[in-house]
């Protein structure tokens, strides 16, 4: 469908050729402009490379270019006749895995790169675990550098089999494997002449045509961001609740409940500066008027009545990705940021830690940088949540260090 916006995250370990793949995708999709190409050619020549190093298109920071690695998530934008893409290129080094988590949190598709010579490694499993956990709906296994293994089908098949094992351990065995050679461009935009045994689509064609699985159909949820009260001559008594519809479809006349207070009302109007709407689907930023004068503030959740309803929680069972050096231990205190609400939180216990090599949960009493584990959290105040697998927006939270302000964990309500 033209006009669609598809968010893609690329992940892989060091030297799998991610930046090269992204550069190749942009170049072959004709999204690289003449002056950018000239700059890359000049920079490649200064470094003594033969030919233009397309990775230099994406590695934006001085340290990245000096070390020839990607450190931070780089966002790229391009469009074809069929789709508009936002591409998050994330780093390979283990210490930057948190950036893969960042990229994956908003992605519809994850492209996980593997070097055909080294096959599935620990980092591959970590990226798969992250993509699977964050419910990225489509996972692509891109087996890169096929040119360096003589485009051999057996090599590709063996890697796909290894990846399958890890995927089924995560109970997420739906993925699309594509053999590519990013440096030469095989199966990136154009079909490769070197791998006639591969009948599937090249990567770009897959990205242009894939329809990410629909999210579960829920009654609409609207976390209130701001209360709109103009108090002007024109709008003396206007009172609207501004927020983004985070699930389902909100319709005028819908019966709603305001949580956590539990008061009931009816949607009287859905306002935008361009006029009133009959209905607003998930993703739309709107302002809602209710029929009754109920007390509503930022942090409240307006929910259309019906099943499943979100749950009021003072205690959470959650999966967290730990994003900072100082380990997470029971008794630690943080600020928990969920939808438009922030509440104080204490870690009651650490239940398990995911062993990446075997992709299975193990006992553990702390979580280190890049660890994924399950925890119990106690809250100073109520939040209104869904399980993350039911709804990303009302099921996701951050843990924030109140002193430094740092975001230390990505959390998923179980």
């Amino acid at each position, binding site marked *: 469908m033209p006009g669609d916006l598809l968010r893609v995250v690329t992940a892989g370990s060091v030297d799998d050729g991610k930046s090269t793949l992204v550069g190749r995708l942009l170049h072959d999709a004709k999204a690289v*402009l003449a002056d950018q190409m000239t700059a890359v050619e000049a920079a490649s020549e200064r470094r003594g490379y033969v030919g233009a190093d397309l990775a230099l298109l994406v590695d934006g920071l001085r340290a990245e*270019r000096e070390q020839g690695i990607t450190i*931070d998530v780089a*966002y790229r934008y391009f469009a074809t006749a069929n789709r508009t893409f936002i591409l998050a290129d994330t780093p390979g080094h283990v210490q930057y895995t948190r950036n893969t988590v960042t990229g994956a949190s908003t992605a519809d598709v994850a492209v996980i790169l593997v070097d055909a010579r080294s096959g599935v490694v620990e980092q591959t499993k970590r990226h798969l675990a992250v993509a699977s956990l964050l419910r990225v709906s489509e996972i692509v296994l891109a087996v890169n550098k096929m040119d360096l293994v003589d485009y051999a089908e057996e090599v590709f098949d063996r890697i796909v089999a290894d990846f399958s094992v890890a995927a089924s351990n995560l109970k997420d065995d739906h993925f699309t494997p594509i053999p590519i050679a990013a440096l030469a461009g095989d199966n990136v935009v154009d079909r490769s002449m070197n791998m006639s045994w591969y009948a599937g689509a090249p990567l770009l064609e897959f990205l242009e045509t894939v329809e990410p699985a629909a999210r579960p159909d829920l009654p609409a949820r609207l976390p209130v961001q701001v209360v709109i009260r103009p108090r002007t001559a024109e709008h003396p008594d206007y009172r609207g609740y501004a927020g983004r519809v985070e699930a389902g479809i909100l319709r005028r006349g819908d019966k709603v409940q305001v949580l956590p207070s539990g008061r009931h009302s009816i949607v009287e109007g859905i306002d935008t500066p361009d006029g009133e709407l009959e209905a607003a689907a998930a993703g739309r*930023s709107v302002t809602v008027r209710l029929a009754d004068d109920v007390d509503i503030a930022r942090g409240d959740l307006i929910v259309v009545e019906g099943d499943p309803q979100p749950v009021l929680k003072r205690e959470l069972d959650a999966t967290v990705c730990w994003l900072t050096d100082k380990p997470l231990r029971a008794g630690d205190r943080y600020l928990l940021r969920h939808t438009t609400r922030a509440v104080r939180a204490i870690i009651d216990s650490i239940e398990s830690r995911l062993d990446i090599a075997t992709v299975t949960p193990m006992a553990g009493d702390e979580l280190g940088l890049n660890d994924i584990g399950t925890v119990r959290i106690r809250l100073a105040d109520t939040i209104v949540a869904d399980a993350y697998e039911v709804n990303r927006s009302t099921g996701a939270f951050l843990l924030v260090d109140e002193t430094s302000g740092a*975001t230390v964990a*990505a959390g998923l309500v179980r």
Partner: protein
Amino acid sequence: MTAVLPPRSAEALQRAWLTDLEDEAIHILREVLGQFERPVLLFSGGKDSIVMLHLAQKAFWPSRLPFPVMHIDTGHNFAEVIEYRDRVVAESGIKLIVASVQEAIDAGRVTETPGQTRNPLQTIPLLDAITSNAFDAVLGGARRDEEKARAKERVFSVRDDFGQWDPRNQRPELWDLYNGQHRRGEHVRVFPLSNWTELDIWAYIEREAIEVPSIYFAHEREVFDRDGMLLAVTEWTQPRDGETARVESVRYRTVGDATCTGSIRSIATDVAAIVTETAASTISERGATRADDRASEAAMEDRKRQGYF
């Protein structure tokens, strides 16, 4: 940058992805009002800041804009842009704060290098104004597609007391949960247009029928070539030996300090024509028009680290 123009039918003008981008930007703007005490929106009269102001007005409609706007004025302006700025602000009753580079030079806060652009000098007046007004959130129109260092920028980007950006130590930014937590003295730069491209900006200006200053449209102007850019003849930029001024039909793709912002040859006299030209362009916005980014491979990163926009 976008390479292929979608078919221009009535449906295409609806452009579903523009609605997605608008919804995202409005969500971000509302988070700023929800999480901060004293936000300010940077407004130069350039197209990105015009789109920002338009989105901010939509985000809080029917309330008036709940924060002031601020212009960091290098003193080297295009008259058409200042006229536009003052008129828009007056018409909508918005509070405008002007932080002046000239005043900072006069006060000895910054030193001007003769013959050099004043663009890097904006950093000190910007930080001074943030401190003296106690702003805790500064909304800017920077886009990730503009430049490689900007491609690594967060939507909520924390700056320390010195206004510095530390690209290696950025907070992870997950889902649409923006973390505005900051310490005293720190402030947060917020970029609601992060995911927009130059083409998106023009397509949105077209869809929303937003007025922009006349220098964005093709007009006759006296220009000369310098370093592969078409600079206008102004009070501050005169042709040197070997450079000859002539009149050409040009327009501006970016509007910044007049001494470092070049024009491009164009016959686009309306927004629809600019959309078409932008979609067909083979040169990036900053590559075509910004001398300040040509200094080195990391020119933008270096300025951003110091506290630049």
